[in-house]
């Protein structure tokens, strides 16, 4: 066992202390008993053991006994002992010296350990503080690594799950990890066996396991058994990681709200900016068409007005689609008879229906349905407009409804050529039309809007061919219609 410079100095100081004691004792010898001189030496040993530790204390014990024997026990200046009773003095002196030395050294060691523990606790506290202030995951990894490196001289690596639940290393750790072991610890949420000198600790958060902390000592044989401290570190890391996770969630939610608000304001600004010139265009063209112009010019003005109106309808469709896609439309579902919304759709379409007779067949016991009337009107308008566009003039259009288990099936059927088979599947997608080479107007937004609206009402919509014609059928859930109190009841109440 090598002796360091510091230790050598301690032994030297111990020896000098003993010699100084002997000198002092020699000075006061004329006035004191030899037995009391022993006390002086005992004090010296005690002081040495208190200040310098166990080794120097042992040296001081033996040296004191030797010096006492040599200088103070007759015959003096020899190690010979004349009076045999001094042997007992030597034994007691040595025993007391050794025991006090041992005790003080132990105390000192405990005090030192307590101090070290306190320093570590303070470091842990500092770590907790800087983890609480961490704003990025690498910062967490760095802080934990610095603490473990300083306190127990160990390297560590923070492993956090990605979107698929696979652990990924955070920051630059120098720990050679076994991925499947780490993954097992993560999945089970329990710390695993130490493998190849690496210990895996799960980061257990409030709601779930947040990751794994892998720790390995730099020098082998390091004291890795300070389990409570390691667990404390793991808990601190878990809290920090969890906090950052929630910060991220909150930030994303905030960002989403902001972008939704932006989208919604862009949409309304766009709708205003597009509608204003169209209103002017329609108004002026209509004014011209009503003025005293030649028939041909009047016809042109009417065409301008009609096209501008059609453009306005298209713009509304596009904006509706954008709003539906942006999730910007709030359903205002109310219980109401289906009949009413069919009637208002037919009225709204007016001339656009041309000369198609519309036949409506609704069962008498059709219950009230819960839907957003404005949106359902869009569905009927789009389906009816399609039916009138893609079927020969004067051919009828049928609107029927049937009650099935838990839902109502509503169909709009025309007597035209039907839907091209290769398009049937995609007809509800945006910008797809049922007839490929068609001179009809429209970009195929209508059915996509229908589907978005029906979906929002928890229904389904399908397209099929009949002979002849096409039939579009959508469903609405029946739910539990409210009871309508009769007149008599209401009368008595008022």
């Amino acid at each position: 066992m090598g002796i360091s410079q510091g230790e050598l100095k301690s032994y030297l100081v111990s020896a000098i202390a003993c010699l100084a004691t002997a000198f002092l004792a020699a000075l006061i010898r004329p006035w004191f008993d030899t037995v009391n001189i022993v006390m002086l030496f005992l004090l010296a040993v005690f002081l040495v053991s208190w200040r310098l530790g166990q080794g120097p204390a042992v040296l001081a014990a033996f040296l004191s006994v030797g010096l006492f024997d040599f200088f103070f026990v007759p015959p003096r200046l020899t190690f010979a002992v004349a009076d045999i009773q001094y042997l007992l003095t030597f034994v007691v002196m040595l025993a007391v010296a050794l025991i006090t030395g041992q005790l003080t050294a132990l105390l000192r060691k405990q005090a030192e350990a307590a101090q070290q523990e306190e320093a570590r606790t303070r470091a842990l506290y500092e770590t907790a503080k800087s983890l609480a202030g961490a704003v990025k995951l690498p910062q967490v990894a760095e802080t934990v690594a610095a603490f473990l490196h300083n306190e127990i001289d160990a390297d560590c690596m923070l492993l956090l799950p990605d979107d698929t639940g696979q652990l990924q290393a955070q920051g630059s750790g120098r720990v050679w990890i076994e991925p499947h072991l780490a993954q097992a610890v993560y999945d089970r949420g329990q710390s695993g066996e130490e493998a190849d000198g690496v210990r895996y600790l799960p980061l257990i958060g409030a709601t779930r396991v947040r990751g794994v902390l892998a720790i390995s000592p730099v020098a082998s044989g390091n004291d890795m058994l300070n389990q409570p401290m390691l667990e404390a570190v793991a808990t601190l890391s878990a809290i920090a990681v969890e906090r950052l996770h929630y910060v991220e969630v909150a930030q994303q939610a905030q960002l989403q709200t902001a972008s939704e608000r932006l989208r919604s304001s862009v949409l309304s600004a766009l709708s205003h900016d597009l509608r204003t010139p169209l209103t002017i265009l329609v108004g002026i063209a209509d004014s011209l068409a009503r003025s005293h112009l030649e028939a041909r010019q009047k016809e042109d003005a009417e065409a301008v007005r009609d096209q501008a109106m059609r453009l306005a309808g298209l713009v509304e469709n596009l904006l509706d689609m954008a709003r539906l896609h942006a999730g910007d439309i709030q359903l205002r579902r109310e219980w109401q008879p289906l009949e009413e919304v069919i009637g208002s759709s037919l009225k709204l379409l007016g001339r656009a229906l041309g000369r198609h007779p519309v036949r409506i067949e609704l069962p008498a016991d059709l219950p009230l349905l819960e839907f957003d009337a404005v949106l359902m009107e869009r569905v009927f308008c789009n389906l009816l407009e399609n039916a009138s566009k893609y079927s020969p003039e004067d051919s009828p259009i049928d609107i029927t409804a049937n009650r099935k288990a838990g839902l109502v099936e509503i169909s709009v059927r025309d007597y035209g050529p039907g839907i091209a088979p290769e398009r049937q599947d995609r007809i509800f997608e945006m910008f797809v039309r049922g007839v490929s080479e068609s001179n009809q107007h429209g970009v195929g937004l209508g059915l996509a809007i229908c589907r978005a609206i029906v979906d929002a009402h928890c229904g389904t919509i399908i397209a099929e061919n009949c002979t002849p014609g096409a039939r579009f059928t959508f469903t609405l859930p029946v739910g539990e219609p409210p009871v309508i109190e009769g007149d008599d009841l209401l009368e008595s109440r008022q």
Partner: protein
Amino acid sequence: MSTVAPRVLLIEDERQIRKFVREALQQEGYQVFEAETAAQGLVEAGSRKPDLVILDLGLPDRDGVEAIGDLRNWSAVPVLILSARSAEPDKVAALDAGADDYLAKPFGVSELLARVRALLRRKSRLSGDGQTLVAFGEVQVDLIRRLVTRNGEPVHLTPIEYRLLRALLAGEGRVLTHRQLLRDVWGPSYVESSHYLRVFVGHLRQKLEADPTRPSYFLTETGVGYRFQS
């Protein structure tokens, strides 16, 4: 109708829209005043004493609904609002605040003139003696004797149906919101129960319309309310 040309106040911030609306109204013989902002419009409404106000809901200086509320504090002049099609809640708010009718942009001139005429007719009718007999289609309603006949045959209406019919007739030329009708017919505690209204309007149509699914008198203003038109 009075011999003096009816006075119309047009509050709209778009110059071109103002222009064609003004010309269309002038051609019909109306006297037209214009305002660009709500503030200016309220001042004009006070000084010009118009017979009708046409108000754009999207004015730059203040919320149109608020402006209607202000106007209603001291004037009962009919108000026709111009608004976007896909803004039902705005329309309802404006109508509940006291507006009488609305027109969705873009609109044709004949549509505009029809609404203006209906509101002016309503105003002159209100200022005259109360009507006691209303006739539309095959139906005649005697408001004094509470008698409803169709093709001369009496039609039985329940008390609620009759109250609803009276409320709709009284609002001829206006749009009545669900809320207004529910409050008038059922009472304030029913203003959220719009299904009552819809079911009873359905009953009225069954009893009084030639084709109940395609009504020509009791019209649906989807997402807003109802309109009676004779």
